[in-house]
């Protein structure tokens, strides 16, 4: 069960790389977070070392990352995104293939060679690491400041799964702090993209290297 859930987590990440539309990226991000909260709930309820705090984490993920964040992002996209489809530096197909290569790299090199001291069995750790890489690549391949926002949240999802995979989640107070950070971070970056849009009249990162007073 947990294997299939982590797989769906990976698939949503790859599908995000394969699309142009902003609304699709946000919907897939919400789906990915939903899978994340399902993993947390599953571990909280049926795992051998079940602890109630996984349930809290799952609930928080559900409320903040599945409902609140996508809602904020949709509102923001309505306001700042000029074209429904964002400019890409490489095509969606190629970007998806690169994503697969990154996943392959994680499976074949990063986990068994670079991180061999981290003794974590199962699928979850490599999938989480590849999700971080995929989020990073998502930010690189999209030339829109708005999508970099989405990429950040995607990377955060990956890191979160990493924490769950390594030692069953972080202390609860830390998790709360992270959620708060994420929420505030997205709001601040939202304001920031709004300002970029106001100043440059575009979110294309290609033109952001020009100075403007």
């Amino acid at each position, binding site marked *: 069960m947990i294997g299939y859930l982590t797989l769906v987590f990976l698939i949503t990440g790859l599908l995000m790389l394969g699309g142009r539309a902003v609304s699709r990226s946000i919907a897939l991000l919400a789906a990915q977070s939903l899978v994340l909260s399902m993993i947390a709930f599953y571990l909280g309820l049926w795992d051998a070392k079940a602890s109630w705090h996984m349930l809290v984490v799952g609930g928080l993920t559900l409320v903040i990352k599945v409902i609140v964040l996508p809602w904020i992002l949709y509102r923001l996209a309505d306001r700042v995104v000029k074209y429904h489809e964002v400019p890409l530096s490489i095509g*969606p197909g190629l970007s998806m293939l690169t994503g697969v290569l990154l996943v392959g790299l994680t499976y074949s090199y990063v986990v068994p060679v670079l991180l061999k001291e981290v003794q974590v069995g199962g699928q979850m750790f490599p999938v989480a690491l590849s999700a971080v890489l995929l989020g990073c690549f998502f930010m690189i391949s999209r030339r829109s400041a708005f999508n970099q926002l989405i990429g950040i949240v995607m990377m955060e999802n990956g890191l979160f799964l990493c924490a769950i995979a390594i030692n069953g989640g972080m202390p609860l107070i830390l998790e709360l702090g992270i959620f708060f950070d994420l929420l505030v971070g997205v709001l601040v970056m939202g304001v920031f993209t709004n300002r970029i849009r106001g100043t440059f009249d575009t979110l294309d990162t290609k033109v952001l290297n020009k100075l403007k007073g």
Partner: protein
Amino acid sequence: MEGNVTALGGQIIFLMLLAPLINGIIKKAKALTQRRRGPGVLQPYFDILKFLKREPVVSAHTSWITLVTPYVCLGASLAAGSLIPLWGHSAFQLGDLIALTYLFALAKFFLALSALEPASAFGGMGSSREMMITTLVEPVLVLGLFGVVMVAGTTDLAGLAGAGQNPAGVLAFIGLMVVTIAETGRIPVDNPDTHLELTMVHEAMLLEFSGRHLGFLHWAAMVKQTVFLVLLTYLFWPHPSGSPVLQAAGLLVGKVALLGLLLAVLESIMAKMRLFKLPELMVGGAAFCLLAVLSNSFL
């Protein structure tokens, strides 16, 4: 030996009879999702019967290729279908998964050639488009099948029943679904319902055929679609081996119809893609198949 011959013949006849029904179900489901009433489920049978009664008209400039193509297409599709051991035992050791792939390629090759022969404006266009799509689809198909084959460790179809029932199989299934859509000429790739000259692919190749020959080609396309769906159910969702033939057949029809419904829904919610955007779709499918192969080799 005797039993095997009956099983093989029975399977071929079963596939021939099932194919129009599946096509009818898909058409009906598509019509219903679009809030049309649509033709009856049995309509494809009547269409084929009507075609078979008519004399074919063949251009005087064509050679034997045009004459044999309808039979090669139907024969190759049926041969491919007969390789799948549906009733739990392999009829003969006729060929494996690779042979199945290339039987379909053979049918395609002849169809593309015969569309070129009468030198009509649209036939050549259809052939060139079909060949372009084939070059995109075939690697994805083979990769996806390898994703399944690597688990079972054999390309022999008898050992592959349910080989896709694992996390890597999910990835391979998504990739192979994309392939099925492309191979059966369904919507993001080709539209089976129109003869719009700007977009048609498969229909463009059939333009010069008529009567009996056209009927056989339509039938071959339906058989091919059914064989693809049967192959998917065989790899990812087989019936328990050793169940009685009638029960197995009923289950199979149900599952294939269910997959057909999935195709119909997918076709209804998507828009036809531009031809030069197809590589994006196929690379997406390839990414999933590649991931299936990767996760098999590292886990």
